[in-house]
């Protein structure tokens, strides 16, 4: 309890921003796979699943790497919450847009 009272918000903000980055990367790869043929091939890590295997694997890796890096960078720091939170929501929104078929299918070939 005493330890919780002295907590800074750095690690929470890192977790939120990393989730935003992971979401955005998923949207980005989903759209890139549709727009660029070679990217779609690269993302095909496991043939029975197709490019979805790469999109989701790379998004999870980006999320975890961002979380580890930001978490260690901000571990004992008090971060301006509003700015990072809004940035995270924008990244999540980009992730939602990038995974929405009427959007990414615009780039289909």
């Amino acid at each position, binding site marked *: 309890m005493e330890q919780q009272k002295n907590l800074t918000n750095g690690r929470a903000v890192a*977790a939120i921003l990393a*989730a935003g980055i992971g979401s955005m990367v998923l949207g980005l790869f989903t759209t890139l796979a549709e727009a660029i043929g070679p990217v779609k091939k690269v993302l095909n890590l496991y043939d029975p699943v197709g490019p979805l*295997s790469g999109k*989701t694997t790379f998004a999870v890796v980006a999320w975890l790497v961002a979380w580890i890096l930001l978490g260690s960078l901000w571990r004992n720091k008090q971060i301006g919450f509003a700015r990072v939170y809004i940035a995270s929501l924008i990244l*999540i929104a980009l992730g*939602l847009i990038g*995974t929405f*078929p009427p959007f990414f299918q615009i780039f289909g070939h």
Partner: protein
Amino acid sequence: MIITWRELWTVIHGMGLGSLFFLVFSGILVTLWTLHPERVAAAEQRVRQLGIAIWATSVILWATVITGTYTVYIWYRAKPPAGADLTEFPRSYLLSHPDRAGWHNLGMEWKEHVAWLAPILVTAVAYIITRYGTKLVEEDKLRKAVVVLFSIAFFAATIAVVFGAFINKMAPIR
């Protein structure tokens, strides 16, 4: 009364794991929303219960997307050999007629991607609840941010579950 191995996995993925998330979601959301200094007498106990519930939810969601992507989805997108009965190949069956194609082009394409946002967001929420514990009661901005992230995760999971149910009705995996 027979159920195939594939049908069983589809039930575990959708009705089992997916429905479990829906069951716990409202309870977690209400608990998070009512974690307020004036309303909470035993915050410590409630936060502990919340932590258990939300980590369980995170595990359920990871299990759902992994089983969905690496078992059910493989059967869904399997390519039929020439002359095959398309009803055995859901993706091809849906795409074979313009009236059904939307279930794949919008429904499945959306579901298979957006579903992965849910476990990422819920894991972040679970970490924050565990890490900050009862401090969340005082940290109004952080608590509200957690509610928003959890609600976005619910939105993503809802799309996946609802389209999953409809697609399995239109073109069941057997």
